[in-house]
């Protein structure tokens, strides 16, 4: 046995957080570890496990936030992950939603049969009272024969007790029961320990009803999404036009050109750092210097929209609105071989395709995951790309932007409809709990937004700068001409674009936002810009998404998916050329 392996075996104790989806595991996880993790009010958002370290009485232990699962017989990939991880744990903290006590008990009973030490956190204890539920914790502890600790994860109530009683976790000696026997046992437990007072619908429940009834729900959804969109656009443009752009143009630009000119007044180094001047002036969008465009694109053109988008997405998530949207769009998504939950990968994907691709795991079958991942890669531009499309097309009028996005939406529907027919496999129906609306916590929302923005800053911005660097290399080395000639038949002959657009196609593998930005200096007509930006969205995912998709779909399916992407790009590109450019 290798040393490393031995250490791992002997190493830190593993504590697994397990429970049904959306019971508050992620919040408990961050309470235990102090780590920031993203929680949301959508069943199944923890699709991948998160690891952290906690201290129990001075001793360090590994804590793992396992994806939510309702039973140890998994129905989707996220649940499979959960069941596989069970074997590795030393202690299980079974998080139970006290307001849904009865249905949560099934997993608990299953866990108790597993010959592993269990302790139960009876979470959402604050909501229990509002709902007129009463649970006799002492009696429950006696019946299950493991420690039961009521907790309110969001305020931290009960977490200390949970930690201090961790080593009381035990594996009660129970003989395995059949499923029917389990349900009988659950019935008996519930009868003995839980009383529910009848009460009327609360205000938030009436709103909840209105948002899922089609007659009221659909208009509400349209208004909500419209307001969200308006908010992002208005505030985003304001911040760019009134604050960031003036700062860059009036202060940063002259300062940085001054510094660079002092040691490299002209020549290659100057061009790489501050870029080519346009009509004798620095143009932040077009000069393509590392210190000019390389910073202007991520920080001025993209960051405001990314931040606002994540703020809004986080709000919709935390309030619990996303599952309602899933209900309303389910009928349409069913025609695409998917079901309503696929909207989650679209919404996340509009921020960044990587989490969008990961979230396809909440779908049950291979067919659904294939369709939603392929549609994501083809038809859902990330916020960075969207911001750039707005940036370069906005100046010619909103109509052009509309053409790009209408094309993508239409393509999503059409392609989904075709794939549903052609791809073998099952498309099960939507079956999901709809969590109650919750008042979002401002600090949690800010923290979540910051974590997502930070991951953009840390994981995307360096690649944007690298992208700009590659653009420089392409031009300085003359590779752009060679590539241009190679791609000319497609670009010029088929799409009606100049052959220099080849550079954008290449850089698009790395970063779509930089690629869209590269279109600007080419002097394209607005319609050519429409064709080119649509192509950049469709033809291939960026490298980060590509890597995740290979992992999620497997190599074979990913090859299939790529073939679909490239052929769709060619067909749609040709069609757009005919329709929009008329040549």
């Amino acid at each position, binding site marked *: 046995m290798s040393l490393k392996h031995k250490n791992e075996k002997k190493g830190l104790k593993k504590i697994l957080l397990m429970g049904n989806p959306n019971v508050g595991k992620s919040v408990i996880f961050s309470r235990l570890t102090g780590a920031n993790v993203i929680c949301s009010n959508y069943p199944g958002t923890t699709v991948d496990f998160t690891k952290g370290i906690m201290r129990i009485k001075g001793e360090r232990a590994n804590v793992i936030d396992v994806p939510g699962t309702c039973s140890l017989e998994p*129905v989707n990939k996220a649940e499979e992950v959960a069941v596989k991880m069970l074997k590795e744990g030393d202690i299980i903290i079974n998080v139970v939603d006290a307001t*849904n006590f009865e*249905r949560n008990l099934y*997993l608990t009973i299953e866990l108790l049969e597993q010959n592993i030490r269990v302790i139960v956190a009876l979470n959402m204890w604050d909501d229990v009272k509002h709902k007129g539920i009463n649970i006799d914790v002492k009696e429950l502890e006696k019946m299950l024969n493991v420690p039961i600790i009521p907790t309110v994860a969001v305020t931290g109530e009960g977490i200390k007790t949970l930690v201090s009683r961790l080593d009381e976790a035990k594996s009660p000696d129970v003989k395995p029961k059949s499923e029917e026997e389990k349900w009988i046992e659950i019935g008996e437990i519930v009868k003995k320990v839980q009383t529910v007072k009848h009460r009327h619908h609360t205000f938030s429940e009436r709103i909840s009803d209105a948002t*899922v009834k089609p007659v009221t729900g659909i208009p509400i959804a349209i208004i909500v999404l419209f307001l969200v969109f308006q908010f992002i656009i208005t505030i985003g443009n304001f911040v760019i036009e009134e604050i960031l752009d003036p700062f860059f143009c009036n202060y940063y630009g002259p300062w940085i050109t001054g510094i660079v000119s002092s040691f490299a007044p002209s020549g290659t180094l100057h061009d790489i750092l501050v870029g080519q001047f346009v009509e004798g002036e620095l143009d932040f969008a077009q000069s393509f210097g590392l210190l000019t465009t390389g910073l202007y694109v991520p920080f001025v053109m993209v960051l405001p929209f990314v931040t606002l988008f994540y703020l809004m997405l986080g709000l919709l998530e935390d309030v619990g609105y996303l599952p309602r949207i899933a*209900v309303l769009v389910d*009928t349409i998504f069913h025609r695409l071989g998917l079901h309503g939950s696929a909207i989650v990968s679209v919404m996340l994907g509009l921020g960044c395709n990587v989490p969008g691709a990961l979230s396809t795991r909440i779908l049950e079958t291979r067919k659904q995951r294939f369709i939603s991942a392929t549609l994501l890669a083809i038809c859902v531009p990330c916020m960075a790309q969207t911001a750039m499309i707005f940036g370069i097309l906005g100046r010619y009028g909103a109509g052009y932007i509309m053409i790009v996005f209408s094309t993508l939406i239409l393509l999503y529907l059409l392609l989904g409809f075709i794939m549903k027919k052609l791809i073998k496999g099952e498309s099960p129906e939507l079956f999901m709990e709809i969590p*109650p609306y919750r008042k979002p916590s401002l600090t949690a929302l800010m923290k979540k937004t910051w974590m997502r923005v930070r991951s953009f800053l840390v994981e995307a911005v360096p690649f944007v700068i690298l992208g700009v660097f590659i653009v420089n290399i392409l031009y300085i080395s003359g590779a752009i001409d060679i590539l241009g000639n190679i791609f000319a038949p497609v670009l010029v002959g088929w799409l009606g674009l100049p052959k220099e657009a080849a550079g954008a196609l290449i850089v698009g593998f790395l970063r779509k936002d930089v690629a869209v930005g590269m279109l600007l200096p080419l002097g394209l007509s607005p319609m050519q810009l429409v064709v080119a930006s649509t192509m950049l969205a469709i033809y291939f995912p960026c490298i980060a998404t590509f890597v995740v998709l290979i992992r999620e779909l497997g190599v074979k399916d990913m090859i299939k998916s790529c073939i679909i992407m490239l052929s769709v790009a060619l067909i749609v590109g040709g069609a757009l050329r005919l329709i929009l450019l008329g040549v």
Partner: protein
Amino acid sequence: MDLSKLKPGKIARIVGLEGGHGFKRNLRIKGIKEGKNIKIIARQPVGGPLVVEVEGMQTVIGRGMARKIFVEEL
């Protein structure tokens, strides 16, 4: 009668589930269980899913699945 025929706003008692083991378990762990009262909150058009409520918890369920849940109107 099966659940898909229950009118929105009406309450019924679940009397039986039809289908394989996995399917039944899946329903029961989401609270849709024999003996429980169930209410239709909303019904999406053109064969879309139903939003149902059992013991205060709402669940969305496809029309096809709803046809395998048998209820008696109260």
